[in-house]
């Protein structure tokens, strides 16, 4: 009797919000468990290994020897190529981001229009997303056959043996055009390099194209209609409507491009780290290297987000 009377024992009735919050925890529980049990220890171990030297025990097992910053020092000062690989990789990344984002935006706008064979083009454009990843990428990298027989760059054959796009471009005297326009030779080499690597860029902009397409689909057609009634041309509509409305997606894609580019196993820094991993005693060294690389890319992401978020337009929703 007394037990029933005590108010502390009475079950509290949870409000709807509380119950919903509890259900939310249930849904994300798998991730939470995995993160705490598997992922967090892995992260900590990885950081720990980067400060240690690893020794194998005969017949299985291993022990660690704490060496402090030794691995980091070795990566930065003893390794002859790591720093140069890192800086050139980061530089490459900065050049690739605008190219991939602009290309995928342009392609998404094209693929979003009504035209002959749209479904077929879309199917073809997303082939690289599915088929040119991971393993296939690795097989294709440095593929003598594709390079020699029918690479994109050698498919334009001028007949004089000069057959890369850069040479075609220079044959067409674009360099003089560029210098007349008072822009430096660097931009010229940059553009020519991009054209040379068009296959690479297409391969890497699949997901971004999908994201842009989704963004374009969600812009209300009423806005375009009112624009055309007011007499705006397609060009004006793009700059005044499409671009501001799609700008949040540009941020998402820029960040995704950075992540994708630097987690990709084929980029020079990653493959260098992979090579180090396979060397004797290079496991911990590679952990140290990749943590440095990770920090660097975090800085890049912060810079990209900082620059882009100044220009982003968020549509106010009335709901």
């Amino acid at each position: 009797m007394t037990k029933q009377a005590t108010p502390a024992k009475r079950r509290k009735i949870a409000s709807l919000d509380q119950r919903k919050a509890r259900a939310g925890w249930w849904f994300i529980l798998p991730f939470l468990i995995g993160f705490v049990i598997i992922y967090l220890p892995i992260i900590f171990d990885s950081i720990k290994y980067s400060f240690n030297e690893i020794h194998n025990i005969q017949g299985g097992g291993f022990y660690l020897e704490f060496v402090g910053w030794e691995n980091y020092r070795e990566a930065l000062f003893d390794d002859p190529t790591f720093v140069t690989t890192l800086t050139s990789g980061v530089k490459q990344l900065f050049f690739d981001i605008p190219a991939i984002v602009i290309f995928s935006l342009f392609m998404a706008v094209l693929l979003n229009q009504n035209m002959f064979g749209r479904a077929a083009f879309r199917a073809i454009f997303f082939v690289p997303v599915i088929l040119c990843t991971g393993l296939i990428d690795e097989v294709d990298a440095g593929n003598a056959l594709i390079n020699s027989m029918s690479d994109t760059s050698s498919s334009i054959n001028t007949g004089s043996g000069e057959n890369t796009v850069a040479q075609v471009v220079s044959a067409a005297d674009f360099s003089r055009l560029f210098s007349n326009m008072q822009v430096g030779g660097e931009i010229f080499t940059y553009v020519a390099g991009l054209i040379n690597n068009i296959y690479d860029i297409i391969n890497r902009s699949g997901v971004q194209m999908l994201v842009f397409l989704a963004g374009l689909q969600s812009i209300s057609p009423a806005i375009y209609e009112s624009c055309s009634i007011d007499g705006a041309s397609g060009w004006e509509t793009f700059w005044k409507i499409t671009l501001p409305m799609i700008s949040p997606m540009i941020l998402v894609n820029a960040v995704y491009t950075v992540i994708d580019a630097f987690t990709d196993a084929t980029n020079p820094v990653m493959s260098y780290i992979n090579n180090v991993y396979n060397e004797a005693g290079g496991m911990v060294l590679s952990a140290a290297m990749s943590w440095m690389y990770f920090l660097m890319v975090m800085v890049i992401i912060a810079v990209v987000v900082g620059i882009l978020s100044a220009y982003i337009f968020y549509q106010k929703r009335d709901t």
Partner: protein
Amino acid sequence: MNAQNTENAPKVLKESKNKIKVDFERTDAWTRFRIKYLSWHFVGTLAWWLFRFVLLLGISYVILLPFYTKIASSFMGRDDFVDATVKMIPKNFTLDTYREIIKENKYGEALLNTTILSVVCALLQTLMCSLIGYGFAKYNFKGKKYIFALVIFTMIVPHTTLRLSMFMKFRYFDIFGIFKLLGGGVISSFKVLKFSSLELTNSFTPLILLSLTGLGFKNGLYIFMMRQFFNGVPDELEESAYIDGCSTFRTFFQIVLPISIPMMITIFLFAFSWQWTDNFYTKVFFTNTKKWILMPGIVKIPKTLDTNYAAQNLYSAAIRNTCSLLIIAPLIVVYLFCQRYLVQGIERSGIVG
């Protein structure tokens, strides 16, 4: 009024059940043609149309050409690589390359193993990422923002960074040292279990564990996509289910899941094909390449094919290409069936946040 109307009204010439032929004053064909086609507007549209078509065609060519090259070269005999006149079409048509790879590199075994692994992983990942994404999209609870930041974090950390520790984790699998404690690793007399750590490598377990917890390859991206998709699903749908007395999980499985099928197929397609061509996890977890033959294991040159020849480089490249063709062949079939959903699912997701 009435009279005027009848005067201007088109005269009916012939009328049948389905057709009607009417006589009215029509601008003559030439004027219509001139106005429609001989204007700058039309020229502009036509030029744009052509430009767009040629551009898309060109890029499609760039995408598809390597595939064609691979396919063509996979049928070429050894002599074709020396012959300069052979460009795109094989002269000595042969199936030897395929036969040797399938036989010697044990393609069948790799296909079976990889199919089981990819299907299981992709199904688990699709389901778990939908669950997790749904939790993030539809429920408000304390600390949601921070946990979602953790999801983004798992996406950003490159897995190469975690390579060593991931291998170690699953080679000597342990949960907070519990197994070590029970197995006598800490106090040798206190021994409940026979082992102090589990060896999970060289089995499907690590990948299944990672898939179950939404930590697999690019799962952060899938969770993100599913969250965006569920954000766009109207709340009223679930509310009406709740009012009818449906429980939370039943609502999810019976109301929400069926309408998110296109999106889930998209995720499945990504998960399946990325798991299929994955060579990071397979390298880390399957160290015993003799016992476990997976797709990365078949990319090698069969000994029976003699590459020691004039155009050795090209020929071995062609053999490797044939391997990659064999790897992606099942993917192409899957893609042909699923590509419709790929664009559909993404379009409906309304990723714009």
